[in-house]
C-alpha cells in the first residue's frame, strides 16, 4: 500500500513554520544563551551520594562558607543523590575537592560519598568548546561535500540547509529549556547530523531516480511521489531508532539522559526536515531531469 499524501501542498505552511521556529531558536541562542556545562565553561562538578535525604538548599548553604562563587546543587536521580556544580574561580586550589568533602561531612552529619568528580580548567574548557565547534562545522562541510559528489549542488545545498535547521532548532530547544550543553550533547548533535543526512539521502536518492524515470512530471510531483514512496521506510526507521533511544532515556541512567533527549529531538526534527525542508529546496532551485543530465555531460563529455 502506497500512501498518497499531498505533501507538496503543505510545503509552504511547513516552511513558514520552520522559518519561525528557526529564527526563534537563533534569538534564544543569542539572547538567552546556551547553558554550558563545566566542559565548556570550566569549573567543578561533583556527584555525591548521602545515606540520608537532605534538602539541596542545605547542601548549598553549607558550602557558602567556603566562598566558592556560584554554586548550583540539584537532586540527581535517586533519593540522596545530588549534583553540585561550582563555578570556576581563578584560584588554582589543588585541595578543593578534599576541602569540599570535609566541609560537607562536617556540616551535614551524614556519610558523603563522591561518586563522580569532574574538574575542567578555564584553558581546557575553551579548547573543548573550540574543538566542538570545529567538529560540528567539519561534519557539516563533509556532508556538503559528500552530497555534492554523489548528487548535484542543488541537493547539496538542500541537505545542508536541512542540517542547519536540525542543529539550530535542537540547540534552540536546549536553550529554551535551559538544558545543559556538554560534550555528550555535542556527540548527540553530530550523530543527529549523520542521522538526518541519512534520512535526506534516502528521499533524494528516490527523487533522482524518479526524475530520470518520469521526465515529464514536475519537480513538485516528483518530490511528492518520492516522499510517499519512501514514507513507510522513513517512519519505520524513525520508530526503531526512537524505541532504542527512549529505552536509553528511561533506563540508561542520569548520565545519558541529556544525550538521549537531544537524540530523540534530533531524530524527530531530522525526519521532519528531510520531508519538509530538504525537498522544497529542490523545487526552489527548479531541479529537473535536465539538471541531472547536465551533470552527466560534465562527467562524461
Amino acid at each position: 500500500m502506497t500512501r498518497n499524501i499531498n505533501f507538496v501542498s503543505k510545503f509552504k505552511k511547513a516552511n513558514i513554520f520552520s522559518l519561525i521556529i528557526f529564527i526563534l531558536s537563533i534569538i534564544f541562542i543569542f539572547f538567552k544563551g546556551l547553558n554550558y556545562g563545566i566542559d565548556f565553561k570550566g569549573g567543578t562538578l561533583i556527584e555525591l551520594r548521602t545515606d540520608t535525604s537532605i534538602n539541596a538548599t542545605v547542601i548549598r548553604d553549607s558550602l557558602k562558607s567556603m566562598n566558592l562563587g556560584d554554586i548550583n546543587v540539584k537532586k540527581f536521580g535517586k533519593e540522596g543523590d545530588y549534583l553540585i556544580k561550582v563555578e570556576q574561580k581563578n584560584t588554582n586550589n589543588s585541595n578543593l575537592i578534599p576541602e569540599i568533602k570535609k566541609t560537607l561531612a562536617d556540616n551535614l552529619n551524614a556519610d558523603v560519598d563522591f561518586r563522580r568528580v569532574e574538574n575542567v580548567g578555564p584553558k581546557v574548557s575553551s579548547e573543548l568548546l573550540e574543538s566542538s565547534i570545529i567538529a560540528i562545522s567539519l561534519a557539516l562541510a563533509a556532508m556538503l561535500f559528500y552530497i555534492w559528489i554523489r548528487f548535484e549542488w542543488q541537493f547539496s545545498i538542500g541537505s545542508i540547509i536541512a542540517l542547519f535547521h536540525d542543529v539550530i532548532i535542537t540547540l534552540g530547544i536546549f536553550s529554551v529549556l535551559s538544558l545543559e550543553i556538554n560534550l555528550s550533547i555535542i556527540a548527540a548533535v553530530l550523530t543527529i547530523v549523520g542521522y538526518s543526512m541519512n534520512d535526506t539521502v534516502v528521499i533524494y536518492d528516490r527523487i533522482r531516480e524518479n526524475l530520470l524515470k518520469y521526465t515529464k512530471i514536475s519537480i513538485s510531483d516528483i518530490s511528492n511521489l518520492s516522499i510517499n514512496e519512501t514514507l513507510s521506510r522513513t517512519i519505520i526507521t524513525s520508530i526503531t531508532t526512537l524505541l532504542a533511544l527512549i529505552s536509553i532515556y528511561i533506563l540508561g541512567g542520569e548520565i545519558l539522559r541529556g544525550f538521549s533527549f537531544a537524540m530523540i529531538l534530533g531524530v524527530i526534527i531530522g525526519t521532519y526536515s528531510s520531508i519538509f525542508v530538504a525537498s522544497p529546496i529542490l523545487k526552489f532551485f527548479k531541479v529537473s531531469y535536465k539538471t541531472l543530465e547536465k551533470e552527466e555531460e560534465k562527467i562524461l563529455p
Partner: protein
Amino acid sequence: MLNFSKINIILIYLIFFLISIFSVLNFQNKDNLILDKKVNLGLDLQGGSYLLLEINSDSLVEEKIQSKVIPIKKLLRENKLNYTDFKINKKNLTFKISDLEKFELFFFSRKENLINPYIDNYRAFELDYKKLDSNYVQVSLSKFGLLTINNSALKQSIEIVRRRIDDVGTKEPTILQRGEKRILVELPGLKDPERIKTLLGKTAKLNFRMVSENSEFGVDELISETGEPLKISKRIVMSGENLIDAQPSIQNQQNEPTVSFTLDRIGSQKFGRATTDNVGKRLAIVLDGKIISAPNINEPITSGKGVISGSFTFQEATDLALLLRSGALPTPLDVVEERTVGPDLGEDSIKSGITSLIVGFILVIFFMLYKYKIFGLVANIALIANLLMLVGVLTILEATLTLPGIAGIILTVGMAVDANVLIFERIKEELKTEKSIIHAFDSGYSKAKITVLDANITTLIAAIILFAFGSGPVKGFAITLGIGILTTLFTAYFLARHLTSMIILRKKNITLRI
C-alpha cells in the same frame, strides 16, 4: 542478487563466524585464558581517574633568561658595543644599544655562538630579539627555543610522573604526552585520586643548606617547621639529585616516622665535607622552598646515609620517600582537567547501560516481527549477528567501551534495521509491478543497494569526525557507532540477503506477503 555460489556462502558464514567468535573471549575465565583479548572498560564504567597535567615552564624560562645575562654583557663589552639601561625581566632582557647592526651580526652568528646557539633540529636560533623604539632591544626566547625547553621538561616530567605512579602501585596506568605541554594520565580503578594528585603536584626539589646569619651567596628568610624564622644560605650543600634511595623508617627513641636516605658517591663526599666543617651548626633540609626541618649537626656524616625527620605522619614519610626516590620534576605540574568516577557509579552505569540495551533490543525485535513477519525474523537474525560481530570487532581491536559507547551500540540496534527496512520496502514496491517473486526480490536488493550505501556513509562520516575530535567517553561512542555501521552493511547485504534467498527459493510457488 539472490544467487549465491557455494564459495560465497562459505565465505560469508566464515567471516561472520571468525569475527563473532571473538565476542566470546570476553566471557573467558580469568585464570584460563585461551587468547588474551577483550573489550576494555572505559574509566566511566570501571571507575578511575583521568588527569590532564600541564607543565608550567615559566620558572625554566626565567632561569634560561637569567643564564644569558652574563654572557650577553660579556659579549657586548668584548666587542665594544655600548649598552645602557640593561633590565632583566621574567621573560626577556631589554637594553639600549649603540650599534644595532653590529649586535645583530654577533647575535645571529652561527659560529661558536655561545649566547644564542643554533638548534639544528628546528633550524632556528634559541633566542630572538625585537627592536623596540629608539635603539632599545628586547631579547627573548624564540618560538623554537621555548619549544626546546618545553620538550625537554615534558620528557623528564613524563618519566618522573611514571616513576611516581608506578611506585604507588596502581594497576595499568596510562601515561601519554598530549601536545607540547601536557601529560595525560589515566588511572583505572583508582578510588581516590587525591593522593596521586598531591604526589604529582609537588616538584620535590630537595636541598640541604646551612642555616647562617650571613653568607657570601646571600640568604633566604624562611620559616622553619616549628614556626621559627631562619636565615638560610643560598648556597646549596647538596641536592636531591645525589640521592640514590629513600625509604620511610621509624626512629627508635620516639617511635617517630622519618625518611632514611642513601647518597651516591659524589653526594656522600659533599655531605661528608659539609658536615665535617660545620659540626655544631644547623643544616636546613628544604623541600620546594619550605623547610622540612633544620637539625643540628652533631657529628660528621661520612657514611653517605642520613635520616630526615620533620614530625611526619607515617603516610607523609612514605610519600616523601617516594617523591625523593622518583626525583624532582623540572617544573610544577598543574591539573588542568580531572575526571574521576567512583567504582560503584561505574557499576551502576554498566547495569543501566546493559538494561537499556536489552530493553531497546527487545522493543526493536518485536516491532520488526510485527511489521515484517518472517522477514522481520530475518532482519532480527541479522541484528543479533550484527551485535555479535560488533562486539567481535571491538574485541579484536581491544577497543575501550564507555557508557556513551553502550549508547552507540543501542543506537546501532535502532538504526541497523534501517538497511533491511530499506530493502524490504523496496521489494514491496517491486512486488506491485513484478509478477515473479524472485525477480522482485532480486531487483529490490539491487535497487536499494546505492541508497543503503549512501545513507550509511553519511553516518559513518559523522562517526569518523566524532572519533577524531572527541575525547575519552565520546571516542568510545564514535567507535561503536562507526563499527556498527560496517557490521550493519555486512549483515544486511550478505547474511540477511542469503537468508532471504533461502526462504524465497524454497517457497517458490507460494504467494508471499511481506
